[in-house]
């Protein structure tokens, strides 16, 4: 492809809207003790920022998590708490 055309085609990238974690007013905090690893939070995360490691550890990518709160609502174990962000 000629180089000027190349510039017209957008390239796949995380953070196409910047660090969307800055949008958050509440932050989801996961409690590994309460979690039964059903992974509903992961499956229903619209932002695709929840990952599971070693079938046990739920890691939330706060760089991009917008803090919508769906994960906390859907968790049947109440293992995710929405905590207010500080300045």
């Amino acid at each position, binding site marked *: 492809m000629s180089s000027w055309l190349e*510039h017209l085609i*957008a*390239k*796949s*990238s*995380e*953070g*196409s*809207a*910047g*660090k*969307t974690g800055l*949008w958050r007013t509440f932050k989801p905090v996961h409690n590994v003790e309460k979690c039964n690893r*059903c*992974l*509903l939070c*992961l*499956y*229903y*995360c*619209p*932002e*695709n*920022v929840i990952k599971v490691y070693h079938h046990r550890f739920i890691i939330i*990518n706060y*760089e*991009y998590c*917008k*803090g*919508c*709160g*769906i994960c*906390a*609502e*859907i968790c049947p174990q109440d293992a995710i708490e*929405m905590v207010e962000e500080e300045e």
Partner: protein
Amino acid sequence: MSLPMESILLPGNPACQGCPHALGLRALSVLENVVLVVPAGCTTIISGVHPKASFSVPVLHVPFASAVAVASGLAAAYKQEGVEANVVVWMGDGAADIGFATISGAAVRNEDIIVVVSDNEAYMNTGIQSSGTTFWKAKTTTSPGGKSEEKKDLAGIMLMHRIPYVATASVGYLQDFVNKLRRVSEIRGFRFIHLHSPCPPGWRFDSSKTVEIARLAVKSGAWILWEYDGRFRISSPSKPYKDETKRVPLEEYIKTQGRFRGLSGEDIEEIKKKVEEQWKFVLTMEKTFK
């Protein structure tokens, strides 16, 4: 549960908090070799700010009325070139209003494409204008006193095209949606899914409630999940609600959303009648296409 672990929509995209399109697109990730065709709407914005694209798959942006025609041509071209591709038109309810002629035409020709209408029941990206599928009595910027027109049944209209596959789905039941997408990938020809997508800013509810409200729509019977592939079946999440006495009162659904604020008891009775008529239609289809 067997839902995708990854989404074709990458993190840090411009979608609002709790956006239903983002949930639907996550489920869409079960399809292989997806090429998206996207007419104007929130998804146009969600797809990224140039030079960054937020999708990991190719996306073609198209004008409203051309969307399904472009997809038809694209699918034919891929076939001719021997390229494996699943051409998916991902469009809003507004786009389905404006682009209906080409949807209907491609359905009649039985083009080999998938069309998903992610229905947030208004033209959201231009500021919440009423669409053909906006819920009865809902307030939008063009229906400030509540929608007075009928709500059209888009999936029902597509069913009447007798295409190989038509279904309704909901972002509140992603497993059901994913099952339907898997079924879709086993079928060739024109396949249509009408996805119910509650939108936090447009319907005025908190971003954490998207899934809960989508489920209330199903539990109250206001949104009915069904599938047609030659046979018509009511899908399992909706099955219990064939029995009216099992349904959550419609008020429970209505009261969660700012767009219904100020509805009178009479208004709600009127909506209940409409919902009942919809159930009659769906149950008749189930008997007709056994």
